[in-house]
């Protein structure tokens, strides 16, 4: 009798173990694929497509009050390196007194690859190591290693958006941007949108009067006018070039366009107009 019970118990344990092995908990993030494209400036780039499970979110380059952006490391041939990633428009999430800048559902992340010549493309496979933080009510971290074959054929421009999240566009010839030691001023066509806001990326040594919160930008006669106070602390720049950067979000829908702005802070003197 005891032997029979022991055998049943062992069989149950074996079934449980088998069950665990065949039905792993779904991961909140998966890398759908990585493909090659060519940016407007001629650089080749890898487009990483993430798929984030419903109710979970990943983070923009500036996560907001909490969170951490994904990171990428690549084994590249001598003389090659990864450029600064290009981030699509995040969603602004306000909960429990926190403001977060997040990516949900399917979204794309562009990783420029910079070689010895401006338009050169690597001719060997790249080992890409990705890691990320993903949160719902709690947070977890994930990793993926992807072997990316060298590009074959002619590279095309990246899509305008992935999963409904658009990549930023540049300021146009009718737009303007001026920066001084204490102000950032941008005039930008609102492209038919009636509202706009600005979110700052992570700029060591430079903060805005909004202290990380989204800034509402007035839109008048079809033009968004950003006039933002800056506070510059060179001693906090951690050896990096002082600059202010961020996204001008035109409209308030997730698929509305956004404009990437990045300007170096001048050493001194008044605001000088700069070409877009």
């Amino acid at each position, binding site marked *: 009798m005891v032997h029979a019970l022991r055998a049943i118990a062992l069989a149950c344990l074996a079934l449980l173990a088998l069950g665990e092995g065949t039905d792993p908990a779904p991961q909140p993030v998966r890398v759908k694929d990585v493909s090659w494209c060519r940016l407007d400036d001629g650089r080749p780039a890898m487009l990483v497509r993430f798929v984030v499970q419903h109710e979970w979110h990943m983070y923009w380059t*500036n*996560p907001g*009050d*909490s*969170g*951490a*952006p994904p*990171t990428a490391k690549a084994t590249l041939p001598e003389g090659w390196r990864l450029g600064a990633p290009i981030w699509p428009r995040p969603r602004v999430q306000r909960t*429990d*007194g*926190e403001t*977060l800048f997040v990516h949900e559902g399917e979204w794309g992340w562009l990783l420029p690859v910079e070689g010895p010549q401006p338009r050169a493309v690597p001719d060997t496979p790249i080992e890409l190591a990705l*890691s990320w*933080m993903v*949160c719902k009510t*709690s*947070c*977890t*971290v994930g*990793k993926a290693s992807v072997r990316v074959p060298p590009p074959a054929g002619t590279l095309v421009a990246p899509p305008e958006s992935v999963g409904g999240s658009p990549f930023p566009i540049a300021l146009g010839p009718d737009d303007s941007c001026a920066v001084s030691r204490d102000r950032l001023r941008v005039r930008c066509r609102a492209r038919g949108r009636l509202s706009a806001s600005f979110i700052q990326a*992570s700029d*060591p*040594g430079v903060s805005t009067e909004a202290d990380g919160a989204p800034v509402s930008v007035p839109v008048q006669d079809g033009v968004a006018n950003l006039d933002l106070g800056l506070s510059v*602390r060179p*001693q*906090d*720049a*951690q050896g990096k070039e002082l600059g202010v950067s961020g996204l001008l979000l035109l409209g308030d829908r997730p698929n509305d366009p956004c404009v990437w702005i990045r300007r170096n802070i001048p050493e001194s003197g008044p605001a000088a107009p700069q070409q877009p």
Partner: protein
Amino acid sequence: MQKNRFLSLLAASAVALGAVSLAMADKEKEQKAGAVEIGSAAPDFKLPTADGKTVSLADFKGKTVVIEWFSPYCPYSGQSSDDSYWSTGRAKQVIDAMKAADASAVYLCINSTHDGYSGKDTATNMKDSTSAVASSPVPVLMDASGSVGHAYGAKTTPHVFIVDGAGNIAYIGAPVSKDGKDLYAANAVKAIKEGKKPEPARTKNSGCGVKYAKKA
């Protein structure tokens, strides 16, 4: 008569609207007032440790105190992961470098996770922390109400605030750089010991949001 009633209603509405605006402004002020700044006086606190002792900031008057916001459930803080400040040994590196720079400096952790998070109370949730925290001499102070976390404006785990010997905030931000090469907190303690201001005095913190109790 009707005109008078209309004017009265208009005046009452204006007063009500004004009251709402003031209440909103006060709320914003209250939220902003809840965060310390570089150079401001560090709010005092008296909190129990996970093992039943009581620690207050005033106990360390005249010393430099590093206060790290901590969570046993965050993979960037006390939970075991490749990115954990504690389980990767980065916390130990910072504490060792801090002690080398100033032997009298003090390192404290505060856990402002609310009671009931992850289905456990704050006393038992500490048992889920990595052994790196449990085996270190660093006391973990329990702030289940979140009042101390809100007073400092702690947003993430980890999030570090350094109080100088005069009781003022000298550094706010991450304990280390993302690549772990710059030990910001230890460098700040060294600068304070040398009579200088930490550079940087502010860095961008990242990590899990502090799981505060919801305000009533």
